[in-house]
């Protein structure tokens, strides 16, 4: 009994390796972590590069976040990218300067205004440092930490939805193609074990992924504190998605149709998440979207807030059990095919 489960696990592991699944997971782990650490976490500190040409020293000493250049030419060159903002200050230290903004339009008028306002705000930043500093730090959640938590939650959600789903389906499609599922119909092994071994493998790889991603991106003490809640939500999401993938792979005849369904499901799942996170929209109908609740629970876990109640966990358990039964039925159907 135990020996056969180990054999199933080993076989599934080798299928995953030969399908490049772990490589894919490792690659996305590195990619996401680099993005969060190198791009996203810093995005807030330097929204737009700002350059200053101030020949008369009218603007005073160096300002944090503003790069001084030596000539008008240099200034023009530096802000020719439609992203950076140039400040040309005319005048001298006695009479004060008149600031001229130089920038290439990015094509969106509103964004151009924001760039201008941002650059101007830097010039007056000096006097307000204390006030701003106090406003930014609330408890241990600095703005950067908040960004990290938010982004890590999003990334983990998308990874579990997309890659987990694809992982189990690619494993199963390979077995379907080789016809070996039918062989399991005449082996003294239960269907439940066959499904469980795939779930175990996927769940452990997803949990490992979640743990590494969390610790790498939130840092040591904070990451560890959030970890139990995050792992619980990751486990639920991983099981749900693996079983959905299992069912799709059983019912669809080939990978081509699977990729179509994959698109539909991806849009269905990610729409409310994108709307609520990126656009800040929270619409009434989202309450009825199961994935919205899974995502919210994941996000809350990153902020160490326990908001989900018994109803949520009850619904998750029911969904997992129903999906499991459906996967067992689908497997039986596949086993009865020509052989």
């Amino acid at each position, binding site marked *: 009994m135990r*020996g*056969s489960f*180990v*054999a199933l696990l*080993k*076989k599934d592991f*080798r*299928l995953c390796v*030969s399908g490049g699944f772990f490589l894919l997971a490792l690659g996305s782990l590195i990619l996401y972590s680099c993005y969060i650490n190198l791009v996203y976490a810093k995005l807030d500190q330097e929204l737009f590069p700002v350059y200053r040409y101030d020949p008369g020293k009218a603007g005073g000493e160096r300002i944090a976040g503003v790069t001084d250049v030596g000539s008008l030419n240099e200034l023009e060159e530096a802000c020719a990218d439609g992203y950076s903002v140039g400040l040309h200050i005319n005048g001298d230290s006695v009479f004060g300067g008149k600031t001229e903004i130089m920038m290439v339009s990015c094509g969106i008028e509103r964004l151009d205004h924001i760039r201008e306002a941002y650059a101007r705000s830097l010039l007056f930043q000096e006097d307000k440092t204390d006030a701003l500093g106090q406003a930014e730090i609330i408890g241990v959640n600095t703005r950067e930490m908040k960004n990290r938590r938010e982004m890590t939650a999003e990334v983990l959600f998308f990874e579990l939805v997309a890659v987990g789903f694809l992982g189990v389906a690619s494993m199963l499609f*390979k*077995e379907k193609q*080789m*016809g*070996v599922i*039918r*062989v399991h*119909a*005449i*082996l*003294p*092994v*239960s269907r439940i074990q066959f499904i469980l071994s795939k779930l175990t493998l996927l769940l452990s790889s997803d949990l490992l992924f979640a743990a590494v991603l969390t610790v790498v991106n939130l840092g040591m003490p904070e990451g560890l504190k959030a970890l139990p809640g995050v792992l619980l939500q990751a486990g639920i999401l991983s099981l749900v998605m693996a079983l959905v993938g299992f069912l799709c792979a059983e019912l669809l005849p080939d990978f081509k149709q699977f990729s179509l369904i994959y698109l539909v499901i991806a849009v269905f799942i990610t729409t409310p998440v994108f709307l609520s996170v990126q656009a800040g929209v929270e619409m009434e109908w989202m309450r009825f979207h199961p994935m919205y609740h899974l995502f919210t629970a994941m996000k809350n876990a990153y902020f160490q807030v326990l908001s989900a109640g018994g109803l949520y966990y009850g619904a998750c358990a029911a969904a997992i059990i129903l999906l499991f039964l459906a996967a067992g039925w689908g497997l039986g159907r596949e*086993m*009865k095919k*020509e*052989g």
Partner: protein
Amino acid sequence: MIRVNNLTFSYGKDKEALHGLDFTVGEGEIFGFLGPNGSGKSTTQKILTGILKGYGGRVSLLGQDIAAADTKELLKQIGVLFEFPYLYTNLSAVDNLRYFASFYPQERVRDVMELLDKLEFKKDYLKKPVSSYSKGMRQRVSMARALLNSPKLLFLDEPTSGLDPSGAVLFRKIIEEERGNGTTVFLTTHNMVDADLLCDRVAFILNGNIAALDTPQNLKEQNRTAQKEPTLEEVFIRYTGRGLEE
């Protein structure tokens, strides 16, 4: 060993595939199950191996009614060779067999190397993935898989398809040998040479009914004409009503 009483099966309304089969197969017998395409051979084999449920009538294997018996216990004593060599193509012959062996009780499992050697499997391919094997090599590995658990009851579906003549001779020799050890063989095939050479008795199945059931010798004799004794193939065609009718 196999006892089938009034077996019926339907794939849905008005799609009855089997209309009441009756036959028994004795211990150590090689029983041929022959019939044209779509006559119900695979359906019968799937019911016997426990894959299809919801049939009518009674089926017992190894003295137990399969509806009541512990399926897992029965499957431990059964070997099945499918029509196509279903194997993990990313694994080698040895790894495939070790994997499938892990589901059977250790005391039933035969030595993998010995088995492959007996099937004259090319030694330099033992550790290479199945994806690099020819059809005949895959067929050998599949046969090894069917024999892995020293089955008391062996179901074979087109065992010699894809084999060259010497491979077919070898397979026939191995099937005879298994029978010599007391194994009962249920052989589904379109190959009349195999059936004639191997089978103690054959059943001709047509549209879900048994059209004839006897030893190959008797069948040929009963259908003898003045000029010559017909081949089993000619008898088969006479019963199943296709092809060279005069």
